[in-house]
């Protein structure tokens, strides 16, 4: 049945953004944070992840399939909107726009990031470790690209979390929605701190 699936697709899109993709991003950035304690600590933490049993199945089920679905349907959502922030400059309308801009940017950033790291390992047997990242962000442009990418990801997740709570009917009243705006923005600041500290540790 091709029709009447929009509700299902939208809800699935919203859910997958938080579980598992959002959860993965949080874990990913927390593991990267170990780089602030030196190459040894980072290699140990990332090595633990790389040596999980059934790694490929876990990766496909918990990361690749959900993120590809989220990306494809997200691009469709982003391009069906007609942006009007110039006429309606309300806070939420700006967040609406930023959510879509960061989303589109993340499709590009994540594709590049996966190519540069995970696929290098899969295709060319490169080792994913501290040195690999240090080489990448040795280039100041690459470092800037990664910083913008990390900030986009943390914003997209934090603001997406806010939308998730509304879309699933958890935050209904304006008051609860406003408070969750503060909470999710604090989460954005925290996660950005974690992510940026990690990338600067490689540089």
């Amino acid at each position, binding site marked *: 049945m091709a029709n009447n*699936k929009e509700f299902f697709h939208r809800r699935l899109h919203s859910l997958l953004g938080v579980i598992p993709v959002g959860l993965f991003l949080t874990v990913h950035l927390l593991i990267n944070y170990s780089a602030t304690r030196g190459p040894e600590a980072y290699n140990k933490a990332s090595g633990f992840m790389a040596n999980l049993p059934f790694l490929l199945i876990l990766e496909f089920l918990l990361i690749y399939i959900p993120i590809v679905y989220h990306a494809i349907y997200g691009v469709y959502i982003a391009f069906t909107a007609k942006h009007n922030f110039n006429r309606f400059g*309300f806070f939420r309308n700006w*967040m*609406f726009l930023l959510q879509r801009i960061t989303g589109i940017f993340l499709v590009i950033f994540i594709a590049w990031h996966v190519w540069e790291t995970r696929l290098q390992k899969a295709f060319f047997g490169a080792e994913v470790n501290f040195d690999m990242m240090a080489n990448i962000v040795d280039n100041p442009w690459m470092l800037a690209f990664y910083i913008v990418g990390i900030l986009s990801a943390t914003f997209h997740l934090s603001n997406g979390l806010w939308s998730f709570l509304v879309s699933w009917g958890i*935050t209904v009243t304006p008051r609860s929605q406003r408070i969750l705006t503060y909470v999710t923005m604090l989460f954005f600041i925290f996660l950005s701190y974690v992510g940026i500290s990690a990338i600067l540790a490689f540089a």
Partner: protein
Amino acid sequence: MAEGQKTVTIIVQRQDNPDSAPYDETFEIPYRPNMNVISALMEIQRNPVTKDGKKTSPVQWEMNCLEEVCGACSMVINGKPRQACSAMIDQLEEPIRLEPMRTFPVIRDLLIDRSRMFDALKKVKAWIPIDGTYDLGPGPRMPESKRQWAYELSKCMTCGVCMEACPNVNDKSSFIGPAPLSQVRLFNSHPTGAMHKKERMATIMGDGGLANCGNSQNCVEVCPKGIPLTTSIAALNREATVQMFKNFFGSDYSY
């Protein structure tokens, strides 16, 4: 025009037919105290001559109640969608710019086709069915506190301002928009209307329905009646979440 008389400058975005290109015309009309955009447009209708002295066709628009309860005269005034009847000339920055609400198909000048909204109201059964083949008798009572609460939602006049402000209501999407959704909440809350709750939920959980909301929350900011549209949408989201589980797992309470 008499020398020294105070005037009002109005720029109207005009369009001759649904398919032609829009163009601007500037009018200068004599000022009167307490004018609103409607009386200014009536002035143009009386004397359809542009500022440059060119004779033109009278500007078309729609109006009805003239007290901001029918929603017919909604248009974009100085960039903001609102009712022309309650837009006072004294409170507007000049030149005053009038445009049609382009989210809807333009018929002519400021006259638009709001069928999209009326069709959506039919689709979601935005009414309370009381007819039967025999006298159905009185329905269940509605608590007074609930009536007062529901009254706020019933203020919707289908004016289309929320639709104009919503980035997800456009010609690329089939989204029914905030106003019809809030009406679902209104009629689902009514004791008799609730008897058709499942049908309404099924409709808004279908294509072009509830899930198309992107939470830009422009609707609640612009609603001239102060209807809590985003609260309605979030409340329906919760209802839809419950309904979704009932539909999938099954429930005897899923009527």
